[in-house]
């Protein structure tokens, strides 16, 4: 099956010379959730805006469901739903009217049953006759999602859907995204929150300075770079790693009070049991034992840092 989104060598330069996108290429398959991670000003929003038609690309092509976004903009845009980063809503309008407007704007015939289903899914049905200004911030964000879903898009862009929302609402949002995925909607979300990408994405892309540094299956990415560390904290500092423990490649840190052991969680034998018994046999007294796992955050920080370093 051809990808639902095919971005090829997309470039965007502004009149002041700033290059927001430097030849981004990305293919997204139908039904997947992809998270685009990147620091502020990395080009995430520009990328989404260009695909959706809000910003004009300097060069490169974008196809949505095989339709070019310029030549065949009607077919391409009909497939896209966009949830912007800012809460852009008309304050005096009723929820149901603004959602109905969105559906009509995208050329879909009125369908109150479809709108009811969407509003119920987002827990907005009871608020359908409320004015937008009467809603809480979280509810407003749901209205934005309802608007984006009103024309039943196949590809949904969520531009930082959980920026500035509380933990509970963030979890709610993740559930909504899972629900949409179950309905077969392809989702591209941008986020600052690594845990968000970790929690809901199938694939992760990292953007910095207008370049897509990496796109990889989340599981592979975490497995490839996801080593685990065991910190053995000692009661007394050591002058050096004891000879009996040399085979474990231990690192002595924390003023020589901690021995750090790295291992692969997927390996058949991690070597932890043997290490701990050898530590005990060497006569060392343990104060505590802590394990740490590389998160996407470590990977992300590493990548972006490398890139910044390379650029400077």
């Amino acid at each position: 099956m051809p990808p639902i989104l095919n971005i090829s060598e997309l470039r965007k330069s502004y009149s002041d010379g700033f290059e927001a996108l430097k030849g981004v290429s990305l293919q997204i398959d139908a039904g997947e959730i992809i998270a685009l991670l990147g620091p502020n000003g990395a080009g995430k929003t520009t990328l989404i805006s260009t695909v959706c038609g809000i910003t004009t690309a300097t060069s490169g092509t974008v196809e949505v469901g095989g339709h070019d976004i310029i030549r065949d903009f009607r077919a391409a845009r009909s497939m896209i739903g966009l949830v912007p980063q800012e809460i852009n809503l008309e304050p005096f309008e009723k929820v149901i009217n603004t959602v109905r407007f969105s559906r009509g704007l995208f050329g879909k015939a009125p369908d109150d049953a479809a709108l009811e289903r969407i509003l119920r899914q987002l827990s907005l049905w009871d608020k359908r006759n409320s004015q937008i200004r009467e809603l809480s911030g979280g509810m407003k964000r749901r209205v934005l999602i309802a608007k984006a879903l009103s024309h039943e898009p196949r590809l949904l862009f969520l531009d930082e859907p959980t920026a500035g929302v509380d933990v509970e609402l963030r979890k709610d949002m993740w559930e909504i995204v899972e629900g949409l995925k179950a309905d077969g909607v392809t989702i591209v979300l941008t986020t600052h929150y690594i845990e968000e990408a970790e929690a809901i994405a199938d694939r992760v892309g990292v953007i910095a300075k207008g370049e897509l540094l990496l796109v990889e299956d989340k599981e592979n990415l975490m497995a490839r770079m996801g080593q685990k560390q065991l910190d053995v904290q000692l009661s007394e500092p050591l002058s050096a790693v004891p000879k009996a423990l040399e085979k474990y490649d231990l690192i002595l840190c924390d003023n020589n009070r901690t021995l750090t052991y790295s291992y692969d969680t997927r390996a058949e034998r991690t070597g932890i049991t043997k290490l701990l018994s050898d530590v005990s046999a060497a006569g060392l007294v343990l104060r505590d034992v802590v394990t740490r796992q590389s998160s996407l955050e470590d990977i992300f920080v590493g990548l972006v840092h490398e890139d910044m370093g390379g650029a400077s």
Partner: protein
Amino acid sequence: MNWTAIKAIYLFEMARFFRTLAQSLISPVLSTSLYFVVFGAAIGSRIQEIEGVSYGAFIVPGLIMLSVITQAISNASFGIYFPKFIGTIYELLSAPVNFLEIVAGYVGAAATKALFIGVIILITAFFFVDVQIAHPLAMVAFLLLTCLSFALLGFIIGIWAGNFEQLQLVPLLVVTPLVFLGGSFYSISMLPPVWQTISYFNPVVYLISGFRWAFFGTADVPIALSLVAIAGFTSLCLLVIGWIFKTGWRIRQ
């Protein structure tokens, strides 16, 4: 054409109008009544008939034009400026609609509102003065064209405006003077020759003259010229709007 989208924009805009229906109607009706009381009854009774028409009746076409032009501009400019201001323009730009459909929705709604108010003022006028309409069809045609062309101008102003002050600037500094000096309250022939010549550079003169002809059968300029002028003005506005959407000026980066 994405007719569903045009209808959606049109109905959404009209809903705003109906939400504030009382405000939308009371203000023009009140100000028109005041004009009739002051110019029609108080001052008008001391002014002799103009071209065989009592002064009170003579100002009716000009008064309607004054309100219709102001309303068409303010409704259309606000209609498109507001989404820019609050950020909801993203939805228009990302929707499967072309510029003609966006313009048709916004300008259509603004023109309808202006037409609505024009008709209300005409009805109000019947309560104060004896108004005859010599060419009803021409009257309707002029009214429709005026609503449409000035809503187009309003749309351009709304796209251009960077803040609320600018939104008010053109109507206050350009349109109101042009309408007042366009023969709303007098015949161009009443002016000294130099000012008559200058007046012919004012596009609103042609509109009001044509509109007045539809009421009383007399005009400052030939009716054909009035039609050419309004058609030319409408085309010019359409050309500018076409250019705006092609280049994305002030709306798309």
